[in-house]
């Protein structure tokens, strides 16, 4: 096995893993703060993919030619609208059920997920949709012979860089701002935080909005890179991202990103050097192994009994 193939698989895995990581952040934040899984999160990502195409088409109609500007505008618009969806999910499926049975919000989230999926299917059609590629080209690295090279497309560079920047921004928000401090306080002890004057409802809504925003970033990047999507993409992406969140330690932000990258790399290397048929089997076996030896995931803190 030659070096360029190894490096190429590392690139493939890193790109895939960055996307997993971005979506995983949404799962891990919601779990961290209310101890529940947001089953509608994959659909939020799917909606972001559709919004990307709609906004991009709109900008093209308005006559915008410059790709970097278009990408920035689409990113901003998609994050805003998708965040609105995230906020609505919390408002409709979680807040009214906050003090009821622990399982009730999970079921209502699954309901929201089905509603969103079918809403998109009915309004946008069931066919695979696509956008023309606006970010072409790439770079050849280590091109020693015509066949041995590592190919990195511009879209792939955009994915990794944007994912990194988004994660740093999010980290800064949680660690340095007043709202971030409130988030951490609610994560540690919701009752105590509310006794001390933190508006917990607002904090929880903020977390859903942030998670949806990160999923929107993933949706834009994936649509720009792969070019096609349908109403069902949220399901596969959601499962993979959830796996990444658990692998990295659910509740931990750096864990989600690490989990995503580890999962992406594991899939790529297994697919590339062993067998593509069984790459998912391998990914989930890896998850089982990690959980056996480290039940709270790679970077998770051991569970403290919640009040």
């Amino acid at each position, binding site marked *: *096995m*030659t070096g360029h*193939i190894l490096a*190429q*698989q590392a690139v*493939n*895995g890193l*790109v*895939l893993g960055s996307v997993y990581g971005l979506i995983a952040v949404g799962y891990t934040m919601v779990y961290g703060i209310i101890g529940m899984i947001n089953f509608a999160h994959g659909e939020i990502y799917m909606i972001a993919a559709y919004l990307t195409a709609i906004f991009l088409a709109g900008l093209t109609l308005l006559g915008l030619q410059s790709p970097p500007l278009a990408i920035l505008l689409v990113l901003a618009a998609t994050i805003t609208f998708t965040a609105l969806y995230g906020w609505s999910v919390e408002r409709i499926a979680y807040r009214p059920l906050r003090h009821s049975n622990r399982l009730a919000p999970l079921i209502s989230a699954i309901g929201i997920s089905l509603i969103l999926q079918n809403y998109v*299917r009915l309004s946008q*059609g*069931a*066919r*695979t*949709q*696509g*956008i*023309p*590629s606006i970010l072409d080209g*790439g770079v*050849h690295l280590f091109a020693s012979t015509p*066949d041995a*090279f590592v*190919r990195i*497309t511009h879209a792939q560079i955009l994915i990794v860089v944007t994912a990194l920047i988004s994660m740093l921004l999010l980290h800064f928000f949680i660690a340095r701002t007043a709202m971030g401090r409130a988030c951490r306080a609610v994560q540690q002890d919701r009752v105590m935080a509310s006794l001390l004057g933190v508006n917990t409802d607002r904090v929880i809504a903020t977390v859903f909005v942030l998670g949806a925003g990160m999923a929107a970033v993933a949706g834009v990047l*994936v649509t720009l890179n*792969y*070019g*096609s*999507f*349908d109403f*069902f*993409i949220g*399901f*596969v992406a959601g499962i993979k991202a959830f796996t990444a969140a658990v692998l990295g330690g659910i509740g931990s932000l750096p864990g989600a990103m690490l989990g995503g990258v580890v999962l992406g790399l594991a*899939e*790529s*290397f297994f*697919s*590339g*050097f062993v*067998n*593509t*048929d069984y*790459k*998912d089997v391998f990914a989930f076996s890896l998850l089982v192994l990690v959980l056996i030896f480290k039940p709270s995931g790679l970077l998770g803190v051991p569970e403290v009994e919640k009040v």
Partner: protein
Amino acid sequence: MKKWLGCACALLALAFAAQLEAGTIKIGVAGPLSGPQAAFGEQFWRGAEQATREINAAGGIHGDTLELVKGDDACEPKQAVAVANRLVDHEHVVAVLGHFCSSSTIPAFEVYAEAGILSITPASTNPMVTERGLPTAMRTCGRDDQQGVVGAEFTVKHLKAQRVAVLHDKDTYGQGLADAMKTHLATLGRKEVLYEGLTRGEKDFNALVTKLRSVQADAVYFGGLHSEAGPLVRQMREQGMTAPLISGDGIMSETFLTSAGGPKYVEGVFMTFGADPRKIPTGKAVVEKFRQAGYEPEGYTLYSYATMQSIAAALKATKSTDGVQLANWLKANPVETVMGTKRWNAKGDLQTSDYVMYRWTKEGKYAEVADKP
């Protein structure tokens, strides 16, 4: 005694049904009317609808009019069986046109065979559809083993490929096609350099593409559908692979262009499909009618049309609704269809297959490959 009672009950039910449905004959149209493969379901429906309209306008079946009933299986085997049962038990259809995905057709056809209902698929090419001895199972398309022969001959003799990689989507149709390809490559003295399956519904096949590069494939065969073939070919090109992609009838849709992200990615992709039915002289008038209504009868539209004509011909000739009798008549008699004269063998397969190789052009259209190997 018990048998006699059962017979009487069946007769009674039949009489009752006949009374209830006087004047109309119900035909089921089953396929992926929703879901990622809905483009093909629409082709089925358009073809069947147009054919029915014209058969009814020409007097129907001895005065009775045909009525179509939709059955949406979304290309999921479980849903296909449920749809088949609904068509049989609740809608009381006398024949079914469908299904699309082989993985749906195979289990659904058992339901129809049990109920004694004629079932003809315009599109499912997996050999198992007609290989299981079901007396009512038929098709108006070719078989994957025939498709594999054309694919393998073309890849070896025309493309002169030495290192062929064979991929599939782990589905009945896709893997069946890939297996047929593999078998016929072997008879031509080529052993594939890679044989692997990807996962339906995923979009990132970069790791697999890198693997194709590492085994130095100079041609890639993919058994599967356009929703995966599109991203696959795009990522091959993005990683700088120039090896041609060859596939089967599962990518026969404009949606392939959409899912690949534009003409520059699909250019040079090859696929096997029946000789373009739109070019058969007997179908000219029908094609014109479709175009006047603002619909291009691509892919399986005319196959569906021809299937409906065959069902109507059998109903007319036998004056019966018994599935076995209808199927036996079709197997013994040629039918004039929009796609020319169709003849079936005893298994329910067409006697002649007309697979040819198509190539996607840089305009994002497809055209028959002119020079035969």
